[in-house]
């Protein structure tokens, strides 16, 4: 049985755009840095950030790729409240593959983030254990309210066929 359905194939190339309802904000930056345990004063101390050439505090590099703040969608039954393609592949389990981030500049508290997600591709493979899997790749492009390119995020999600279903 092929995991790559005609329905999914037809969706490749589609895009969805989200714009945050507010600026990223200093509190969101401090909360994230505190949560991951990063005590770099670049993220909390304006004077320190200015000393090092920034206009003020900046966000930790990966925050923009990890937060769902911009998406502003209600949580799904699993509790997830971010961008999702809602790809349903019966008899499979979904796991994260990996990410490649390209940063153009630090995100700042006054940036209002727009993220455009594109469904870039879907490829069938087999795991080393011989299970069928489908690798779905997406690209998110993040910009701000002035059209500045902030970052891109290439993401792979893997749907692995469950053994008992084969």
């Amino acid at each position, binding site marked *: 049985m092929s995991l790559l359905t005609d329905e999914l194939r037809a969706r490749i190339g589609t895009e969805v755009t989200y714009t945050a309802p507010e600026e990223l904000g200093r509190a969101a930056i401090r909360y994230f840095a505190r949560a991951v345990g990063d005590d770099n004063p670049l993220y909390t101390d304006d004077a320190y950030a200015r000393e090092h050439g920034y206009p003020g505090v900046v966000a930790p*590099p990966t*925050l923009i790729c990890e937060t769902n703040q911009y998406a502003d969608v209600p949580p799904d039954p699993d509790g997830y409240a*971010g961008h999702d393609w809602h790809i349903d592949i019966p008899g499979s389990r979904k796991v*994260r593959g990996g*990410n*490649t981030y390209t940063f153009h500049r630090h995100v700042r508290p006054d940036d209002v983030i727009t993220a455009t997600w594109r469904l870039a591709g879907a490829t069938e493979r087999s795991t080393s254990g011989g299970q069928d899997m489908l690798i779905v790749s997406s690209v998110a492009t993040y910009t701000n309210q002035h059209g500045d390119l902030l970052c891109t995020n290439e993401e792979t999600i893997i749907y692995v066929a469950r053994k008992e279903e084969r």
Partner: protein
Amino acid sequence: MTAPLVEPGAEVPPLERTIDLRAMIAYAGSTWDWHRLHYDPDYLASRGLPAPVVDGQVFGALLAEQLQDWLGPGAFVRRLHFRFKNLVFAGETVRCVGRVSAVEDGVVHVEQRVLVVGGDQAERVAVEPAGAEIVLRGEAT
């Protein structure tokens, strides 16, 4: 603080962190991600998972932090990639390790990994391969 040694083969100082349930809850809140995988015992039991699963995206933050701490506030991480190998569970300790693979035109290339360390179980790999490019002179504006 002495200037870090930045040449091919040089080790990036490791970054180690224990990710307990409290840290996971804080992370879930700070990223607006309330997926039950990260805290809900009933949800986990129904899927045969032994403990809350650490959100893998946090390893991206730790890999970036490891580099920024090493090269200082003027350095700019322009590219970061990572691939997940194994799940990490609440209460486990991870160690980010890395090594310089090349230095070209003020850009440092590093290879990194995230390992799960300590505890009773054998060390396992959480993230591999991973790596980054860092611009020493800072972000281009």
